[in-house]
């Protein structure tokens, strides 16, 4: 019998996803599609009658606005919301702003492949010359971060290393107090939580692409171990598509 339920939601398409650009810490907004995804996700939670006590999100608008759409749909706008940079998307360093073709042209296909396949090799740093350096590194929202905390780039390993302390120190105690938690965040920060919950290997987590805009439900025992695989909420077709897509990822040709 599950002691706790946890719901995660990965934000939908952003304006930069549309353009196929590495987004990372750039504060891109949701595209219209992304807004629709968030509303659908909210509707799925509403249809299933979900109630929450507490919400967590990053400091990037695409995640925050996704959460807002959801809270509006389920009529729980009054819930407390905690925002943290620790749930931000992975910082793509010098690749931020580049699209797929530009990246390959600039760094070569081989190097791109290494970054894509690696758990712990970070992309090049975002230095002061980078067009988005001021916009990101000097943003007021990161004013309280120490020099050590503010990344100039991250590997997936780095992302997980700064997300997990927040999970362990802030979120876990709340879950253990019986609070029903909703986390609206990004592909890679949520991977950190999923990897930890399921005890997945580095290879396995790199294979996993969480579906967007679809509420992901974990039932957890009193030690916060999942009692079963993650469940997706939505209409039958949406859920099946998401499940098939996830299943196919492991089989994708490299």
């Amino acid at each position, binding site marked *: 019998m599950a002691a706790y339920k946890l719901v995660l939601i990965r934000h939908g398409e952003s304006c930069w996803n549309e353009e196929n650009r590495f987004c990372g810490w750039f*504060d891109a907004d949701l595209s219209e599609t992304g807004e629709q995804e968030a509303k659908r996700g909210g509707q799925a939670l509403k249809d299933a009658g979900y*109630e929450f*006590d507490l919400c967590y999100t990053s*400091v*990037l*608008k695409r995640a*925050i*606005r996704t959460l*807002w759409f959801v809270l*509006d749909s389920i*009529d729980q*706008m*009054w819930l*407390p*919301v*905690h*925002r943290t940079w620790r749930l931000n998307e992975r910082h793509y360093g010098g690749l931020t702003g580049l699209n797929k073709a530009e990246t390959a042209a600039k760094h070569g296909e081989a190097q791109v492949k290494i970054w894509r396949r690696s758990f712990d090799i970070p992309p090049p740093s975002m230095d002061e010359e980078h067009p988005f350096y001021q916009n990101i590194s000097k943003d*007021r*929202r990161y004013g309280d971060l120490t020099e050590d905390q503010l990344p100039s780039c991250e590997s997936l390993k780095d992302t997980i290393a700064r997300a997990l302390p927040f999970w362990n120190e802030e979120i876990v105690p709340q879950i253990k107090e019986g609070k029903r938690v909703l986390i609206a965040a990004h592909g890679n920060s949520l991977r950190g939580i999923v990897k930890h919950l399921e005890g997945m290997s580095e290879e396995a987590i790199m294979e996993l692409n969480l579906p967007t805009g679809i509420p992901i439900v974990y039932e957890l025992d009193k030690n916060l171990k999942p009692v079963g695989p993650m469940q997706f909420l939505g209409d039958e077709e949406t859920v099946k598509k998401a499940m098939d897509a996830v299943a196919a990822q492991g089989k994708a040709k490299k």
Partner: protein
Amino acid sequence: MSKYKLFLLRHGEGAWNKENRFCSWVDQKLSADGVKEAQDCGRLLKERGYRFDIVFTSILSRSIQTAWLVLEAMGQEWVPVVKSWRLNERHYGALIGLNRAEMALQHGEEKVKLWRRSFDITPPPIDESHPYYLEIYNDRRYTTCDVPKENLPRAESLKEVLERLLPYWNSTVVPEIKEGKTVLISAHGNSCRALLKHLEGVSDEDIANVTLPTGIPVLLELDENLRPVKPRQLLGDQAKIQAAIKKVEDQGKAKTST
């Protein structure tokens, strides 16, 4: 010389504002016009270059929705938003859901004005027979307050609003201001008025004549003791502001047609 900046904002039009009904603790979202009011307010604040550090709202959706729309327009969605019932609109008791114009016809404009604008006259309390009683008191949000549900108000005068607002102001908002944070309070007509009365030292009689228009940000510049160093500023186009004030004042007047 002002040390601190505090912004108060009364949310824009909700569906019931449009119908001239006392909405109070009934949870309504903004109307399309109310959404626009909030967005316009956000754009204005963005143009003027204001940067918030923290936002306080009530636990009624319309004030939260207003805060979200303002932050969105300013690109400051990341700013923390803290919610409390202590910033809720005044509880209008048995008058909740009644149309102001009908009330004015039944009880006279003066009595309605008294209930709306007096400082310490409490309207009759809401009870279980009231059509909106369950909608309010069965709502889960009222089990999350720092006061047990049975002790939450059943009706309030403006004085009583201030009594439940002030402890929150002192314990939670003031420390943020004193840390130099630029604070936005996105709330309601009467919770904003109560706070203004306290900050500006408005008398019990004069507060009756203070009307806050919807969707217009109010800037208070405060000294180190949180006393205003100049009169409150309603930001934006002055003609628009005057029209907005008149709109609120007209709501209290009786209508002979429906």
